[in-house]
């Protein structure tokens, strides 16, 4: 039983570690890092479709940066985006229902296999600046990425 208490304590302590940094340090001043927000659409029940970063400067990442905020050191980067989908808890439950599960998978695959009008961008990320990466669909159902510097 003591072990359980200890595990709970460790987990609670660890729960502050969710910020995502590509090559910055948590102590870096705001003016020494560029902050990139990735848009996700959808609700708590329907799941979220969004964007993730899969390559930086041509290199595959060990793990996709699919979180909603990523911090970079100010520099020039070539960033490659891909589509992302996260099932909601309701979706997880619904996927266990016959017929609904496969239909949900088809829906998710459609989102994940969406084509992009352009998904590789050369960005000059400046310190103290915020970049909002949003997306929409054009008439050909291709994803169009828009990057706004704030």
């Amino acid at each position, binding site marked *: *039983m003591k072990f*359980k*208490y200890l*595990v*709970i*304590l460790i*987990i*609670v302590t*660890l*729960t*502050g*570690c*969710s*910020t*995502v*940094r*590509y090559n910055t340090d948590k102590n870096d*001043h*705001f*003016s020494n890092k560029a*902050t990139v*927000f990735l*848009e*996700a*659409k*959808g*609700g*708590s029940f329907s799941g*979220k479709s*969004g964007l*993730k970063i899969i390559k930086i400067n041509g290199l595959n990442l060990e*793990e*996709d*940066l*699919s*979180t*909603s*905020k*990523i911090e970079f050191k100010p520099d020039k980067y070539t960033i490659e985006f891909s589509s*992302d989908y*996260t099932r*909601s*808890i309701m979706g997880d439950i619904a996927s266990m229902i016959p017929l609904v599960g496969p239909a949900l998978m088809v829906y998710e695959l459609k989102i994940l296999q969406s084509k992009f009008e352009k998904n590789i961008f050369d960005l000059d990320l*400046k*310190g*103290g*600046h*915020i970049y*909002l990466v949003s997306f929409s669909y054009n008439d050909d159902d291709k994803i169009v990425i828009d990057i706004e510097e*704030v």
Partner: protein
Amino acid sequence: MLRLFLLSIAILVMQGCTTFKTGGFQNPSFDANSSKQYALPSKDLPVIIQYYTNFDMDSDTDAKTRGSKAAILESISEAINNNNIKFIDYYDTLPDEYIHIYVIQDLPHDPRKAYYNGFRTVSTILNIFSFMIIPAVDVDIENYVKISHIKNNTLQKSQIYTQNNRRYFSILFIPLAPFFTIENSLNESIQASLSEYFKDEV
């Protein structure tokens, strides 16, 4: 079982109580246009607001987003006594001169996985160990407020302010957060930012 449950609650409450304080306020100056000769804009100018959050950000009809927008409007109205404060959606064409306030709220209430020790993994484990009684969420809120003075489509001066805020300790308590709500967090950051921006006002 009861002792474990009570201990889980005690730890989570303690954590919540120790982290709800307001974090550091930073106002990095990086704008090349800033100069000592710059005259602050009049508070009588139209104020145009933009808002971005990653918390149900595409749900315009959602009560949470509506509440945040109302809080932003109220906070700015308290700091600037001006009848012409509106969100950018209300404008077809922008005025010649205005104050632009861009409020960005990073509230990573997002099930997408993170790079280091993801939020999803941690909260899932925590949920399991608290027997799903406490669906815990533990996030840092970061508010960014960028205030710009625009004249004839040209940026005169801009300043960005950032502030970290408390972490919530349980999803159950978000709507009822007794100490410091999302709206409180926005209100505090906006008030502090505007106060700092206009501190040299004569």
